[in-house]
């Protein structure tokens, strides 16, 4: 409102701060406030989803049923997946986008600030709806985060309806967030900030946003078809009524495969910011990085049925999806080679953001290797739906997406709150997470190859040892995240003051503003040369 009034005391207006109390957070249109809310919300969901993971790991610590019944176990696997994907990883990246994209392209705020507020405030209601099902008669959704029909339609608990509306709301939130990111990047760059000068984090988010707009409606479509099957007597996925259960999987994975890139591309961007900073050397192959991300995004639309090699597709279909999937290794390889060449003959230091980024490159690559193995259709018949797959996608999501988020938080936290975190505590967080995570997920490769299916509450005796190790690792990893919470709060309250530059080798517009970043930045656009 006041923006259109010609205010004589212009300076005061420029520097006015946030309103006080709860109203600041409810009605804010400030990209920094909204970014912070997204980040805190996603961390809360990370802990909730983590508790569910620990319930699963506690039950699997030993053979036999000890703590939970199979029905509740299935609810835990389902809710853990849904909450981590839609509640922890995706909102965390949207939070980073909110904080950093305007500051990196020299814009005063996001292009659509009111929509920005709305897209955040939908989320607590969506997850409130989803989590409330845990306390309802019949229990929470129990059909896996991939909710294959007809287990999720004809045979689902009544709470499936809450799940469907929750997913609709998350989808609306994501689409609005994506529109906002695209509008900001395409319209609000500072003079001189051409597309091919944009930082890679901005590039990866631009491409991610297009993926979101393309596939979230597909997810909305598939859950709406489920809703029709459950409540209105249609038979989209019910063979008894002439429907097709395999159709569900095609639609779901047409959303689901780009979705996995939605969760990893922004992490590619984060790492591409951090590695040059701590190597004190420009990013190697900027152009090929941009093209590689774009190729990965395009390829992600034509590989979906590699999740379905065992459904009985015709031979030609199997071959097509096998070749297309193998092709993704090429641009992904280019990215890894570029990161390593950036480090080569640099002047390296290993503060927490760099530690997480280096671990990202190594462990994500291991996840990529197992992905390449899974692409080989005949071998996939052996790997499919075993713990090998669980190991694979946790290797790309935990040290991939989650380590990317940790790296980003350590890297930009001093800019956000004007204070440094404690480096020794952060290093402890890194090493405990690193050890815990590998202990939890590496043995799963062996379990899967030896024949343990995923999503089972109890297992045959030959799987006992590796399951115990995995559970110990999971608890180490989980407990370590409380240390992260403590050290972030400690930094915000009483950390050492940070300089504006923060990191010696950091480059980019965000480092030209003071630390902490003022409530409004770049009200006058900077000039980029």
């Amino acid at each position, binding site marked *: 409102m006041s923006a259109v009034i010609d205010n004589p005391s212009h300076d005061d207006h420029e520097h006015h701060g946030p309103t006080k109390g709860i109203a600041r957070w409810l009605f804010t249109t400030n990209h920094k406030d909204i970014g912070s809310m997204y980040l805190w919300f996603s961390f809360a969901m990370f802990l909730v989803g983590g508790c569910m993971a620990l319930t699963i790991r506690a039950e699997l610590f030993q053979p*036999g*049923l*000890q703590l939970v019944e*199979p029905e509740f176990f*299935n609810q835990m696997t389902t809710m853990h997946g849904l909450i981590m994907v839609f509640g922890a990883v995706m909102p965390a990246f949207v939070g980073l986008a909110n904080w950093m994209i305007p500051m990196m392209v020299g814009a005063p705020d996001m292009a659509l600030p009111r929509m920005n507020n709305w897209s955040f405030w939908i989320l607590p209601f969506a997850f409130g709806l989803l989590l409330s099902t845990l306390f309802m008669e019949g229990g929470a959704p129990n*059909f*896996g985060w991939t909710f294959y029909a*007809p*287990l999720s339609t*004809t*045979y689902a608990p009544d709470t499936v309806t809450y799940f469907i509306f929750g997913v609709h709301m998350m989808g609306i939130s994501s689409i609005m967030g994506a529109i906002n990111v695209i509008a900001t990047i395409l319209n609000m760059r500072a003079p001189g900030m051409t597309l091919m000068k944009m930082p890679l984090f901005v590039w990866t988010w631009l491409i991610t946003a297009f993926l979101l707009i393309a596939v979230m409606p597909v997810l909305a479509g598939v859950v709406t078809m489920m809703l029709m099957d459950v409540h209105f007597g249609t038979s989209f996925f019910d*063979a*008894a009524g002439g*429907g097709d*259960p*395999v159709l569900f999987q095609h639609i779901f994975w047409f959303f689901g495969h780009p979705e996995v890139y939605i969760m990893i591309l922004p992490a590619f961007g984060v790492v591409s910011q951090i590695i040059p900073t701590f*190597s*004190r*050397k*420009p*990013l*190697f*192959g900027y152009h*090929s990085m941009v093209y590689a991300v774009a190729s990965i995004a395009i390829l992600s639309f034509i590989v979906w049925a590699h999740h379905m090699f*065992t*459904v*009985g597709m015709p*031979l030609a279909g*199997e*071959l097509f999806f*096998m*070749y297309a999937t193998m092709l993704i290794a090429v641009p992904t390889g*280019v990215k890894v080679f570029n990161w*390593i060449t950036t480090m*080569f003959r*640099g*002047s*390296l*230091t290993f503060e927490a953001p760099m530690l997480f980024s280096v671990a990202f*490159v*190594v462990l994500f*690559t291991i996840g990529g290797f197992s992905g*390449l*193995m899974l692409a*080989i259709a*005949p*071998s996939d*018949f052996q790997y*499919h*739906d*075993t713990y090998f797959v669980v190991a694979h996608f946790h290797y790309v999501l935990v040290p991939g997406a989650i380590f990317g988020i940790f790296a980003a938080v350590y890297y930009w936290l001093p800019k956000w709150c004007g204070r440094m975190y404690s480096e020794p505590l952060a290093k402890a967080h890194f090493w405990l997470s690193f050890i815990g995570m590998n202990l939890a997920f590496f043995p799963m490769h062996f379990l899967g190859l*030896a*024949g343990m*299916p*995923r*999503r089972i509450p*109890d*297992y*045959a*005796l030959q799987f006992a040892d590796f399951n115990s190790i995995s559970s110990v690792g999971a608890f180490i990893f989980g407990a370590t995240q409380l240390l992260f919470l403590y050290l972030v709060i400690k930094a915000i309250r009483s950390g050492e003051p940070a300089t504006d530059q923060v990191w010696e080798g950091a480059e980019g517009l965000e480092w030209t503003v003071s630390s902490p970043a003022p409530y409004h930045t770049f009200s006058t656009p900077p000039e980029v040369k």
Partner: protein
Amino acid sequence: MRSRLVKALSLLLSAIYAADVSAEYGLNMPRGVTDISHSVYDLHMTIFWICVAIGVVVFGVMFYSIFKHRKSKGAVASNFHENTTIEIIWTIVPVIILVVMAIPATKTLVEMYDTSDADVDIKITGYQWKWRYEYLGSGVDFFSNMSTPKEEIYNAQEKNENYLLEVDNELVVPVGKKIRFLITANDVIHSWWIPDFAVKKDAIPGFINESWTRINEPGVYRGQCTELCGKDHGFMPVVVRVVEQSEYDDWLAQKQEEAKAAAELAKLTFTLEEQMERGEKVYATNCAACHQPNGQGIPPAFPSLVGTEIATKLLDKHIEVVVDGVAGSAMQAYGGQLSEVDIAAVITYERNAWGNDTGDNVSAKDIVDYKNK
């Protein structure tokens, strides 16, 4: 320094090699007992070693930089950030590796898809939570349920060697013959898997998927359902006994005899005690997973049978529910799964157990009459 690096590398490699040879300790994929499973294993090991080789090179360069190019060691950053030649090389080389990998993979896949000229055809149907095996053209048709007792699962008894991987009726097939599987499901999606055969195929309602195997060595091979199919997904193992042709023929003949004998039973009448005894067994195998051994069920998904209208009063409705199932729920139609004798016994059991005490004795003829109505 160099010798230390070599030593560390060789140690790492020997650890990986050890992992390879100790397949029997459950670290690696089993090599299996069919030609296809051998091809799959070879593919798996080839791609694994390719990944290891790439990993050694890539991580080698990375760790070299991490140790050599540290600021603390006085490393000064160079400024190079582009080199078209090397970027083209590291795009082309992976493409060549992938093409080399795709050729044997395609060959194996084509073989796996050739289901022609089978010697034995077996239809496999997934149910919540058991498998049904029908030997097409021979009249042999039976269910295979997990036989691990609840006491072992709930840690009241010591777990046996084949814990969760044992069934009441194994699938029996002849060695060295091409066996074609026709795989489908009755309710939700299941997936039939034997690692040693490298056969995994989804069982999908409304679809009949095909797969085949030719097993080289007699023995007992175990696997599990590998598609989440509800509550007892972890408790529906697949067990296959592979025997010589002559033994297989004897077994098949014996199964055909049993089927005839079961049909004879329908003509007899039984006392309430006999019915209760038979019914309790049928209930334990087919009903207890959902309705629980004490009949209380797990409401609301799986209703209680104790003192309800249907279980104590409405006999016709009771028969209807058991024979035809309840549409849109987990209650299956048992009319095609159990014999009339077993259905009569289990209904009698349900009407007299847990204090229901109706005194009703339902006969096989009642079930036949209902079916003919």
